[in-house]
C-alpha cells in the first residue's frame, strides 16, 4: 500500500462523503463487462475491459484523451451501433443479459440506460416538449404535466422554468440546458444514466449544480460518468476506473483499463504507478 503523498493530498478534501459507505467489492452489479473490446472497423479503440458497475453507485471513468473511455461509455446503451463500422467483442451484461445478444432490441436498452452528452443537446422545442419527448415516443398517452413537473423538479430546474414551460429550450443557459437534458433523460424512467463529460461546456457554478444533482440522483439511479476533471471524479464518484492509451506490440494505440477501485482508495493510494502519475498531474 502506498502512503497518500503530498501530490494526491490536494484531491483528498474533494473526496465524496459517500465514499465511506461503499463496500470494497461491487456486490450487486447492474452491468458486468467481461473482456469488452470496442472496434471502429479494424481499429481497436479499447481493449479487454472487465468491470462491474454497482447499483446506485456513481462510477467515474477517467483518463487522458483518446483512451477510449467515451467509446466504452457508449457501449453501455449501444450508441456505438449508430457509427458505421463500430462493433464490440466480449459481453456487456445488464442484469445478467448480454445487451449485444441476438434478441436484444437496442431501443429497449436505451430506454433503460439513458444518456447525457457533453454538449447540452436540447431539442428545438419548448422546455415542456423536451421533457415530454421521451415518454411520448415510448408510447405514454394522456396528460404528461405531472411527469414533466416531477422530472424538472428532480433535475433541480422546476423553480427556474415553471412559468416558462412553453418557451424554447434554446432560451435557457448552458447549465439550465444540461439540467433539462437530465430531466428529459429521467422522464423515460431509466435505471442507469450515462454522462459523457456533462460539465465540459459549463462554468464552475453550473458544474457545481450538476454535481450536486448527480449525487442526489444516485439514490435512485446508477450513474456512469466520463470526466476529464479529476476533482470532479473525486467529488462525486464512488468508484473510479482509470484508463490510458498505450502502444501495443504493433505500435498501435489502444485504450486499456489500468485500475479500478473505490474512488477514495484510487485517489489516495493508487496501486499502479501510471494511475499515480496521472492523478498527480504528471501526464495526460
Amino acid at each position: 500500500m502506498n502512503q497518500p503523498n503530498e501530490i494526491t493530498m490536494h484531491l483528498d478534501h474533494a473526496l465524496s462523503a459517500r465514499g465511506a459507505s461503499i463496500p470494497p467489492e461491487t456486490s450487486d452489479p447492474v452491468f458486468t463487462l467481461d473482456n469488452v473490446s470496442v472496434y471502429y472497423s479494424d481499429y481497436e479503440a479499447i481493449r479487454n475491459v472487465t468491470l462491474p458497475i454497482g447499483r446506485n453507485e456513481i462510477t467515474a471513468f477517467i483518463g487522458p484523451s483518446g483512451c477510449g473511455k467515451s467509446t466504452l461509455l457508449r457501449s453501455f446503451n449501444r450508441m456505438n451501433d449508430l457509427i458505421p463500422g463500430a462493433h464490440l467483442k466480449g459481453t456487456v451484461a445488464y442484469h445478467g443479459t448480454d445487451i449485444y445478444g441476438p434478441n436484444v432490441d437496442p431501443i429497449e436498452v436505451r430506454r433503460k440506460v439513458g444518456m447525457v452528452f457533453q454538449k447540452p443537446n436540447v431539442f428545438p422545442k419548448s422546455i415542456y416538449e423536451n421533457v415530454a419527448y421521451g415518454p411520448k415516443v415510448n408510447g405514454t398517452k394522456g396528460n404528461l404535466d405531472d411527469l414533466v413537473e416531477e422530472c424538472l423538479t428532480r433535475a433541480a430546474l422546476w423553480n427556474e422554468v415553471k412559468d416558462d414551460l412553453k418557451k424554447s429550450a434554446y432560451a435557457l443557459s448552458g447549465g439550465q440546458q444540461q439540467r433539462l437534458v437530465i430531466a428529459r433523460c429521467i422522464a423515460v424512467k431509466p435505471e442507469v444514466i450515462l454522462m459523457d463529460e456533462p460539465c465540459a461546456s459549463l462554468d464552475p457554478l453550473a458544474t457545481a449544480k450538476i454535481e450536486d444533482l448527480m449525487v442526489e440522483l444516485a439514490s435512485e439511479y446508477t450513474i456512469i460518468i466520463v470526466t476529464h476533471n479529476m476533482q470532479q471524479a473525486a467529488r462525486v464518484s464512488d468508484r473510479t476506473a482509470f484508463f490510458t492509451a498505450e502502444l501495443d506490440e504493433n505500435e498501435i494505440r489502444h485504450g486499456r483499463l489500468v485500475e479500478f477501485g473505490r474512488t477514495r482508495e484510487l485517489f489516495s493510494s493508487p496501486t499502479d504507478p501510471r494511475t499515480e502519475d496521472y492523478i498527480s498531474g504528471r501526464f495526460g
Partner: protein
Amino acid sequence: MATNTVSETAEGLSLRQSRPRYGEKIIRFILALAAFVSIFTTFGIVISLLIPSIEFFMEVPITDFLFGTVWTPLFKNGEFGVIPLLSGTIVITLIAIAVAIPLGLGASIYLSEYASERVRKVLKPTLEVLAGIPTVVFGFFALEFLTQAILIKIFPEIEVFNALSAGLIMGVMIIPTIASLSEDAMAAVPSGLRDGAYALGSSKRQTAIKVVMPAALSGIVAAFVLGISRAIGETMIVTIAAGLQPQLSFNPLMGMQTMTSYIAAAGSGDLATGSIEYKSIFAVGMLLFLLTFLMNIFSIRLVRRFRQAYQ
C-alpha cells in the same frame, strides 16, 4: 551599441508615403458591378412591365382584368379577364406540389437519415441530374408518353392537351429542387440532436420525423417555396403539354392555359406592337411578377419565424 540598435530599428520603421492604388479601385468597381447587375435587371424588368401595363389598364379597367372570367384577347372585342389563366396556373401548380412535396421530402429523409454513405454518394448527384434536364424535354415527355401511353388508358375522356400530365411532370421536375435543398437542411442538423433522440429510445423514424425534421424546418420550408416558385414560373412544360386554351375549370383532364404559357404563346406570335393584345402580355407578366414576389416575401417571413423558434 545600444544607440546603434535604436537607429537601425528607426530605419526599419520608416514608412513609404501612401499612394493611391488604382488597381484596387477598379477591381472593387467591377466586383460591385457584378453584384448589382441582378438588382438593375430586376428594376429594369419592373419598369419595362410597368409602362405597357399602365397603358393596358387605361384601356381595360383593372377590375375587369382581375375578376373577369373570360380571356379572349385575340377575338374582335376580346375580353381580358385573367381568372382562367390564374386558375390554370393554380390547378397545374397544385398538381405539381402534390407530386413534388411528398416525393421530394421522402427522398430527402431517405438520403439524410436512412441511406448509407455509399448510396447517398450515388443517389444525390443522380437526383440532381434530373434538375438539369431541359424543360422542353419534360414537356414532350408529358405530351407524348404520359398522356398518350398512360393517362389515356386510365381516363379515356382525357384531352390530348391536359393539365394533369403537365402538373405531374412538372412535379417530377421540381422533386430534385425540394429533395436536394431539404436534404441539405437536414444534414446540417447537429448530430448531437440525433444522438439525444436515439438515447431516449427513439426509432429511426421517430428521430427523423420528430427531431431532425422540425430542426430543419426553416430550410425545408424554403425548399418548398423555391419548388412552388419554379412551378408557377415554369413555361415550357405547360405550353407543350397543357395546351393553349384558356378555360376556367378545375378539371385536370381538360386543357388549360397558364399565365406563363399565354405570355410565351402570345409573345412568339405576330401581335402588333402597341396593340391592346400586345400590352396584355405585360399586364399578365406584371401579375405573375407580383404573385411570385409576394410569395417570396411571405416565405422569407415564414423562414425567419421558424428560425427564431428553433434556433
